[in-house]
């Protein structure tokens, strides 16, 4: 692989950009792989990457039914933070956030990580107490956050209205090293690095069946033929239930639509991410100047990658209260993704009832931020059979009642 650098840009400029090579190969599938990962979203690609990088396992294929990064990874609003309440969450999300800090150098691919800071607004007394508690928990977990008052909120984000008609801003949970990154670049950077290690990323290859022999996985059927494997990782977000059914078990996951939208580009007016969980909306400004907006999930089970318009209306209504100046903005695009929701709003990284099959799902509305940490843990889980990062996220926790309850800590999708 030719490395990207300032020198490479100059070199290519001089020869009319004739020397750029393809970022990843598109090989024909082999008959057998040591590990097959289903789903070339961020989590699948990161899982493959760390299998190669940390454990030297490179006879790996990543199978994708559409195009890589075309699922939720390419549809999210790119908020990165790690200010969770429970210890297992803080560990995996902070691992991820810290890997984001050096990801561009590690992958030799500019993922535009921008640690501009994230504020989660406290707009009820209950929320004030909740975020103060989270700030204390984060201090113990080694995650840098701070509870700030309304004046500081206004200083960090001058376009905010502290005196909302329904809910005044009473303070906020501030994570200065949270922020955003470019979602496509995260998928592309990992894909390029995986391909460079000799892994096969096979797009337009839908897994249609899972082969087993005596309770152990032996391979998969796909639209590009059958392939054998030693281990299988299911990393398909909203389609986790479908793949689990192929493997013969059930996951505590439901698939819902989550929508987002962006406005026309405007001049820089906001250089932090603001989440308003009580009124149900969040916003940041992209480098192009668009206001990037999201809210809560739609109410019913859905695989259409489309949501209902009234949810968009609710989100926008909430944000206009919080940021009155956006009331005249025109919206450019709106879209949806299918998110995989678990009962405790925490992910599942786990062995399964089928030997050799591992699952990484349940990231729901908030798994862009966790991509590198999840890949790191998943690779360790598959290579060694256990990982301190994933231990508490087993699918069996629902049976044991050992929930990692983040639903109260995170009232809104992000």
């Amino acid at each position, binding site marked *: 692989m030719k490395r990207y650098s300032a020198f490479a840009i100059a070199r290519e400029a001089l020869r009319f950009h004739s020397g750029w090579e393809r970022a990843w190969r598109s090989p024909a599938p082999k008959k057998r792989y040591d590990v097959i990962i289903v789903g070339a979203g961020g989590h699948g690609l990161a899982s493959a990457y760390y299998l190669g990088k940390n454990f030297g396992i490179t006879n790996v294929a990543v199978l994708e039914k559409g195009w890589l990064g075309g699922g939720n990874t390419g549809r999210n609003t790119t908020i990165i933070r790690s200010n969770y309440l429970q210890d297992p969450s803080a560990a995996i999300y902070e691992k991820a956030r810290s890997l984001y800090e050096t990801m561009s150098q590690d992958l030799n691919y500019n993922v535009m990580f921008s640690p501009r800071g994230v504020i989660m607004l406290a707009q009820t007394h209950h929320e004030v107490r909740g975020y103060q508690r989270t700030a204390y928990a984060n201090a113990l977990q080694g995650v840098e956050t701070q509870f700030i008052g309304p004046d500081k909120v206004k200083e960090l984000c001058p376009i905010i209205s502290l005196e909302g008609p329904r809910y005044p801003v009473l303070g906020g949970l501030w994570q200065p090293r949270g922020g955003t990154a470019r979602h496509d670049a995260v998928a592309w950077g990992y894909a390029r690095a995986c391909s460079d290690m000799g892994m096969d990323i096979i797009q337009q290859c839908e897994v249609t069946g899972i082969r087993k022999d005596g309770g152990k996985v032996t391979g998969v059927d796909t639209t590009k033929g059958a392939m054998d494997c030693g281990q299988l990782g299911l990393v398909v977000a909203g389609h986790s239930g479908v793949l689990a059914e192929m493997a013969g078990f059930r996951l505590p*996951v439901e698939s819902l639509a989550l929508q987002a939208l962006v406005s026309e580009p405007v001049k820089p007016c906001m250089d932090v991410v603001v989440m308003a969980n009580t009124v149900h909306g969040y916003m940041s400004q992209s480098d192009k100047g668009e206001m990037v907006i999201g809210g809560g999930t739609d109410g019913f089970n859905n695989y259409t990658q489309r949501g209902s318009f*009234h949810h968009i209306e609710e989100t926008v209504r909430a944000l206009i209260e919080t940021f009155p100046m956006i009331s005249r903005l025109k919206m450019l695009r709106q879209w949806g993704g299918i998110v995989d929701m678990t009962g405790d709003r925490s992910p599942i990284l786990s062995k399964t009832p089928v030997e050799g099959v591992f699952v990484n799902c349940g990231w729901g509305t908030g798994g862009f931020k966790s991509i590198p940490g999840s890949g790191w843990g998943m690779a360790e889980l598959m290579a060694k059979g256990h990982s301190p990062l994933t231990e508490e996220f087993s699918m069996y926790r*629902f*049976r044991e009642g050992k929930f990692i309850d983040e639903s109260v800590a995170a009232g809104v999708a992000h």
Partner: protein
Amino acid sequence: MLMLKCPYCGVMADETELSAGGEAHLKRFGPQSSAEDFEGYLFARENPKGVHVERWRHVNGCGKWFHAARCTLTLEVFGTYSAQVTAPPQDIRDAIRAKHPDWRWRDMA
């Protein structure tokens, strides 16, 4: 916009008038049941990419709960029916199977 006919008041209600209540006809398991059954009842939903039978409430209307059969991939609705039954009635099953001959739902015959 999704629209469902409330089988109680007869109103063709759009989604903003309704609230979704999740999978229908769950078999309930209580404190004496096994951990597996209890987990299954609380968390393991069908979540099909296809026809889903589900509960709805006509919350901004007559207030009643009812049932619907709907495809999660196309949003096609195969009918709504009373909340007072423990399985989809025959006419609803026929409507579904006319389009999806292999459709199955848990242990329903």
